């Protein structure tokens, strides 16, 4: 399990790096899906199978398909790779990278002294559902309204 965790983590990291460096948008999207799937595996190793499943289905599945559709609609295929390359240069990357590195360093610095191991206990669908339809039912309702609103507005916005 531990090995799986680190392995999946490494995959997630590498594929994410690929996402932000890729010039070909379709490739980048594929890497993103890979990254998300890897994170799903991480979830699983952490004892959250329900989240892992959702990650795979909703994120890597539904949302990314949405992306794919849009990319196809915008016709941003291979031909935009050159343009993309011209947009991303090392100089542009430098300052944001430093900034993010500082932020990362700070986060790690905060986490450094926090040593605790997880005894992975599986928290299954049952527990999550009990919570969702118990104390958090209002949140679920709100989430559904949010989704509905997103749906409506997406429809409205994308309409000609």
């Amino acid at each position, binding site marked *: 399990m531990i090995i799986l965790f680190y392995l999946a983590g490494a995959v997630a990291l590498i594929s994410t790096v690929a996402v932000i460096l890729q010039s070909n948008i379709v490739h980048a999207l594929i890497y993103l899906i890979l990254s998300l799937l890897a994170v799903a595996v991480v979830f699983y190793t952490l004892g959250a199978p329900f989240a892992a499943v959702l990650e795979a289905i909703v994120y890597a599945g539904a949302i990314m398909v949405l992306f794919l559709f849009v990319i196809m609609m915008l016709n941003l295929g291979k031909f935009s790779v050159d343009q993309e390359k011209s947009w991303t240069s090392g100089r542009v990357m430098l300052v944001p990278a430093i*900034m993010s590195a500082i932020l990362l360093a*700070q986060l790690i*610095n905060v986490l450094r002294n926090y040593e605790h191991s997880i005894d992975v206990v599986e928290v299954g669908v049952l527990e999550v559902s009990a919570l969702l339809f118990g104390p958090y039912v209002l949140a679920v309702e709100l989430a559904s309204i949010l989704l509905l609103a997103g749906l409506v507005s997406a429809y409205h916005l994308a309409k000609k």
Partner: protein
Amino acid sequence: MLDLIWLLPTFPLLGFLSLVLTSGNLPKKAVAVIGAGSIGMSFLVAAIIAAQFIASGDDYFVIEVWTWMSVGEFSPGFAFYLDGLSLVMMLIISGVGFLIHLYSTGFMLDDPSYSRFFSYMNLFVASMLMLVLADNLVLLYLGWEGVGLCSYLLIGFWYENPANGYAARKAFITTRVGDTSMAIGLFLLFTQLGTLNIQDMLHAAETQWPVGSGLAVAASLLLLGGAVGKSAQLPLQTWLPDAMAGPTPISALIHAATMVTAGVYLIARTHILFELAPNVQLLVAWIGLITLLMAGFTAMTQHDIKRILAYSTVSQIGYMFLGLGVGAYSASVFHLMTHAFFKALLFLGAGTVILSLHHEHDIFKMGGKRKQLPIAFASFLIGSLALAAFPFTSGYFSKDEILIGALEMDGPGIWLWAGGVLGAFFTGIYSFRLVFVVFFGESKAHHDEKEVAGFSMATPLIILMVLALFGGLISIPVDSVFNHGGEHEEHHISALMHGIMIVVPLLGIGVSYLFYMSKTFSIENLMSSSLAKSLHKFWFSGWGMDALYQFLFVNPFLFLARINKNDLIDSFYSGIVALTRTANGLVARAQTGQLRWYVMTVIGGVVLIVCLGVLL
């Protein structure tokens, strides 16, 4: 009939109102009737009241028409106070005023603003009567400011010429300086004595303040400030010569006979206060003396016929101040009256000369006019004789009394007397210089003009001639006003002194004769040295006072006004605005519209906050 004393200022006021409301739509005849008639009515009433008052034998008479304002203890009324002093003043004002109005109906006949002229004149007479009849200082102040206003309006009567406007403003502002001092004096008197009713105030001052007390000194000094402003005495005398820019009847009425003597009236009215501050009273005498000498010197150097008369007015009022300073109040008031006669005569005569010679003012461009302008010549001759105190003219009696008053005074009295006599010598010189230069010698220009003197102009001149000659025989009923308490000590004036006082003016006339008539001495020789030239220039400019004030007050004020035209304080607020704008510009530059830039700043903020969180 005494109750009707309020009619005195009311008639001219009505005249003013009717002339203003018709705003120049009346024919000139009607204007003349209203303008001069209202003053005539006033004089008539004044004469009747005077007769009744003297017959009644009372010391004074008071009537309050209504309470002006009443705030706490402060309750001045529209109240009139009549005693010997105000009686004399009211008769002079309405009488001489009427004559001058009458004269003006002819003099101003060709002026398009005929109605405006008479409306201002009427307002002036109303204010002046208010001034002398006021029973409290606030009402007096009303008249005081009112005459100042009319003086301003009338000096600047011919407003097209900016120089006239300048002279008018100078007169108003200079006297306003004095008025302000007087106003502060009123505040002080009210705060200390609790009343501004003149008689109550004087009584309270007499009982509350010891002689020479600081408050008395302060109060009398402040009132003196008002008096010197209005009466054109040192150091506020500079406005009067410039005030000659107005029409000549104005100079006669306002700047010779009545308004400029208001200061004398004020001091005479409040003389008890001045007696409580002997040093201030002495100061009055010295101011009078110095002014009369300075003005005498200056008068000898002027060319403009009206400026000569103006300086002589300053000088004669100096005599009155001298008289007030040495305690010869009735002599001062007497001189005030005779001066009103002969100076009005001189000015009106000068008006005739000027009008006849088409507004020529320079005496050296005249000459030999005695045949051409006989009435003016007679006026000038009689007026100058009286002015120079030629024996048994009116001026002789009054000036004599003042000088005797000075002699009677202990201490510096003899010096004041000597100065006064010296002044009389100058008076002789400059008054007859004028007569000799204008009316004798050979005619230099203006050969053909006829004398312009219709009935309306000649009559006042003749009446005034009579008054100037014999006015000295009138005895004025002011004893009850000034001789309160204490027996008057009779001094013996030696015959020698009398002789000196008679001879000195004659000497002056003689010197003038030698220079200007027989040409035994030549002015050119006298003027050849550079010292004489610079002295002449110095005297001619009125002892450089104008330049001094220009330098001391006017220029700094103008400078301050100019540098601060845009209000420095506003620049403080503009500064705030500019600062905000700058800050806005700086922050707005961050609004690039670049999403990444915004995210960067957000991240920067997060980094900063986390940093703080870690460090603190």
